[in-house]
């Protein structure tokens, strides 16, 4: 939404750095679905899908789609070796019992204490929560990939979410086209910046109160 394809891939690439061999990872729709493109070949993970796949592989080539092998968004995928199918209650059993190491989601707003608001705009857009509440509440690590501001230019990283919450205090890391923030017990910390943006730009477009890391990383891609 609003971000060019190169920028979207930059966000996905940064999130991919957080993925380590052996993890079970769930990806949301939108920018998070680009993350596997940036995973080094020697990193082996199991991608989980809420409908009932563990070990989901990339999209098939055009013409090889199987209508009965789709991700949670209803789009064709493949199965990697070692992968399996299960029913949706098992897929969510995996989530609720804490077996998802990392989930990467989009969001409408995130607060400085890690509250996530990504399921409803009252009176405008009410798509439903799907599996977002369970994923945000139960995954060991939650990364949000999103635009820094909404389409009206309002900051999406806020002191307190104005939209109804999906979950409270569950986001660990936020990646936008401008910067990377860590949500810690000591508060929100700006740790990385995507050049050519500068700290002043990030400050002017962020409503939340945040600290700035002493060793700020300027991401080289």
């Amino acid at each position: 939404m609003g971000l060019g394809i190169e920028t979207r891939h930059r966000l996905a690439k940064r999130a991919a750095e957080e993925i380590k061999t052996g993890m079970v990872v769930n990806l949301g729709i939108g920018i998070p679905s680009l993350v596997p493109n940036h995973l080094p070949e020697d990193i082996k993970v199991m991608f989980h899908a809420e409908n009932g796949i563990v070990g989901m592989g990339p999209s098939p080539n055009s013409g090889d789609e199987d209508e009965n092998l789709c991700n949670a968004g209803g789009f064709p995928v493949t199965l990697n070796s070692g992968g399996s199918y299960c029913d949706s209650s098992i897929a969510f059993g995996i989530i609720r019992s804490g077996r998802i190491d990392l989930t990467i989601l989009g969001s409408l707003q995130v607060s400085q204490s890690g509250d996530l608001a990504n399921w409803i705009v009252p009176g405008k857009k009410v798509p439903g929560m799907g599996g977002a509440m369970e994923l945000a509440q139960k995954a060991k690590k939650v990364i949000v990939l999103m635009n820094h501001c909404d389409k009206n230019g309002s900051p999406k990283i806020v002191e307190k979410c104005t939209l109804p919450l999906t979950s409270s205090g569950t986001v660990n890391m936020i990646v936008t086209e401008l910067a990377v923030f860590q949500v810690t017990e000591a508060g929100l910390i700006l740790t990385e910046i995507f050049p050519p943006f500068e700290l002043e730009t990030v400050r002017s477009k962020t409503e939340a109160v945040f600290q700035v890391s002493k060793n700020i990383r300027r991401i080289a891609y």
Partner: protein
Amino acid sequence: MENPFNKVTTLDQVLDFFHDGMTLMFGGFGGVGSPPGLIGGILEKKVKHLKLIGNDTGFPDIGIGKLVSNGRVDNVIASHIGSNPIAGRLMHEGKLDVEFSPQGILVERIRAGGVGLPGILSDIGTDNEIVAKDKPLVELNGKKYLVETALTAEVSIVYAKKADEYGNLIYDKSARNTNPLVAMAGKITIAEVEEIVSLGSLSPEEIITPGVFVDYVIPSKGVNWKWAWE
């Protein structure tokens, strides 16, 4: 000798079970794994005022979405309606009542209904005013949980890859999704299947839904919609 367990019948025969105002539970996730022939039959029979229970409202022309788009549905319990903008419009116009349930909790409520439990305890959305609305909170081992009620339906419709004459079911890849749960929660369960095989030809180790949960089996003619990615 005739097989006394034969549940195989036709679409026409099972259409008698669908009537105005009924509660209908359906298998499928984003349309994948929803039974196209049964949905088409319900649509043609002009059944209306349906109360639907299922994961989502599909896409406007895919899966259960067709019934919603054609104004045949009054109520739906689902986790998501975002892929069917018509459902969202009808909800805002006050023509469709939607109860949202977190996806995994919804399917667990369906499972509870199918396995004879009155409800489940959940810590998902305990502090969320929309999810927690009107639900009792109980304390167990020092933690608070929402009581989420079990769900059942007059009729459950599911889609499977293979059935034998007793209704033992095997599913197809991710089209399994909510089907095994939905299959258990119907007072009457009808399975639409790609292939019907004789009793004894499915490996007992492979059967996902034991036929004891299935009342009728009908052959599928395949999907009659175009997928969103096509």
